[in-house]
């Protein structure tokens, strides 16, 4: 599903080059559950942004679902994201004035796929995550764990192939964080490919594969 060949990424501050990723080679197949671990500043978030088609590498080749990503238009990238990737963030990023159901439905607005009965589907997802009676609540009326589950439902509504989660438990207490990780494991058991980016070593045991990033390179890649 994902093939990265010698991916490099640098930011330029004036004349000075600031390398973030220094040559990443990586292959992730369908149905994997990857924990991408690294300390802050290691380059793990930059790597996730590139994998998630939100950022472009300075050098190297990226093949996503058999397609070379280099030089694609913004619009094509937006469509690829919409169809194939579900995003989950540390801060949930729900829209405050929409209720849970409406938040889950946002990707449908931009969807190129024919999703049948999106509202019923959104309700089913929320019910499955234990939010059946929270459907009409605004994010401010939900707890952190509930908000994150709404965000995961939003990531799933468009039936993506890949779930990308950036520090999904970072804003939650340990117990709730554990529940969220269990949820990812359940989705993985159903066949979704999952990549969780984190700095928290306690999450390592939830995945099936652990990749450690240090100073812009892969320092460890092992089965769990």
């Amino acid at each position, binding site marked *: 599903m994902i093939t990265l060949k010698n991916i490099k990424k640098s930011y330029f501050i004036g004349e000075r080059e600031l390398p973030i990723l220094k040559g990443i080679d990586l292959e992730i197949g369908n149905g994997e559950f990857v924990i991408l671990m690294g300390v802050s500043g290691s380059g793990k*978030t930059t790597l996730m*942004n590139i994998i*998630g088609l*939100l*950022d472009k590498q300075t050098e190297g080749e990226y093949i996503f679902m058999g397609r070379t990503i280099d030089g694609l238009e*913004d*619009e094509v990238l*937006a*469509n690829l*994201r*919409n*169809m194939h990737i579900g*995003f989950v*963030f540390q801060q949930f*990023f729900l*829209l405050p*004035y*929409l209720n849970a159901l*409406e938040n889950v*439905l*946002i*990707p*449908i*607005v*931009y*969807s190129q796929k024919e999703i049948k009965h999106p509202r019923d589907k959104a309700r089913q997802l929320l019910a499955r995550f234990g939010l059946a009676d929270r459907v009409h609540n605004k994010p401010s009326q939900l707890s952190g764990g509930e908000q994150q589950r709404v965000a995961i439902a*939003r990531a799933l509504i*468009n039936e993506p192939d890949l779930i990308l989660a950036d520090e999904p438990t970072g804003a939650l207490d340990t117990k709730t964080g554990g529940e969220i990780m269990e949820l990812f494991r359940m989705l993985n058991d159903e066949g979704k490919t999952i990549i969780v980016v984190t700095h928290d070593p306690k999450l390592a045991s939830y995945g099936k594969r652990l990749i450690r990033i240090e100073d812009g390179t892969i320092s460890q890649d092992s089965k769990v």
Partner: protein
Amino acid sequence: MIYSISFYLKIALQNLIVHKARMILALLGILFAVMSLVAFGNISSGMKKKIDNEISRFGKNLVIIRGGLVFATGRGARQFAESKTLKLVDVKKIKESMPGVVEAVPFFDVTYKARYEDKTLSVSIVGTTEELFKIRNLNLVMGRFFSGEDEAKAEKKAVIGYKVYENLFQKEDPIGKYVLIYRVPTEIIGVMEEKGTDFTGQDQDVQVYIPLGTFMRRYSNVDYIKGIYIQVEDGVSLTQMKQRLRGFIRRIHNKKDEEKDDFSIFTMEDVLRTQSEGIRLVSILTIIASTVSFLIGGLGIFAIMLLSISERKLEIGIRRVVGSKKRDIILQFLTESVIVALIGGIFGVVVGFIITVIVDYFGEFPFSLYLGNIFLSIAISMVIGILAGIYPAMQGTKYEPVEVLNT
């Protein structure tokens, strides 16, 4: 597509509700602009209706010729100089040789006292022919008009205005009774319906109509007339007819180029011109005022949209992440600015409508809705919404998700 639009609408409305005070300020400019356009459109159309009513009450397609010098301005036609040169033969010539003239009716009017038993009343005596009743839309409440035969026989018969009937007869049946006019006993044969004051300032209800022949021979013994009512064919321009009549009468009066007219020609439009010009002046002022208001309203929406978009960076970021394209972002914010402008426009129509009702009530104008201005101002509101929203919406596409979400 329909789903996206309804979604954008929903978000737009929700944002409006969240930021009530701000949005109301933003749409006030549009509201005032639309309000003044709509109120003015309605009120001026009511005023025009009133003027048209007065004109049709007076008689359709009429040109009035009066001997001497008459100024037809403002409220009424004022006589400045008399002339005795207008004759019955002029009427005949006009009727025979002027194309476009349907009817030419001579009249002689003078104010005099009428007496019945011990009651007297100052009345306006009008000597004229039976055609006058037709072209001036005069109707009776009792009796009959005089006829060509009365005219030919110089019968001393009169049709009286409603106030004359009320004051002299006090509900007594006047038909067949005799009133003294110029000390001549005159038989009452009809009573006119109540008409009020016409736009020339003449109270129609104190008129006493007498056959012209009778009047000229038996009452005042004059050989000239005071004026002529000319009814023009439908579709013939009254202004042109005035010019042609002026040339024609100058010719039959043998006027040399350097000589002044010994008569005046005017139409009801001339008399009501001051009012029409007033409406036109106010309409120019309204257009200026509402243009300025639209500009201010547009700037208000522009500023609020810029603010709103910089506050909603995160929202833009998250939309981009889940697959929204730049044009989706533009479409969404345009929907919002158009909605704000439209709400301003709709409230403007409502307030303008209320103002119309109030002004019409106190100004005693007939109520009239001028739909043209309503549609126009709603359309302008939409255009303003688009123009004011386009730059802020473009700004919104500059926020890249990576930058917004990682801070």
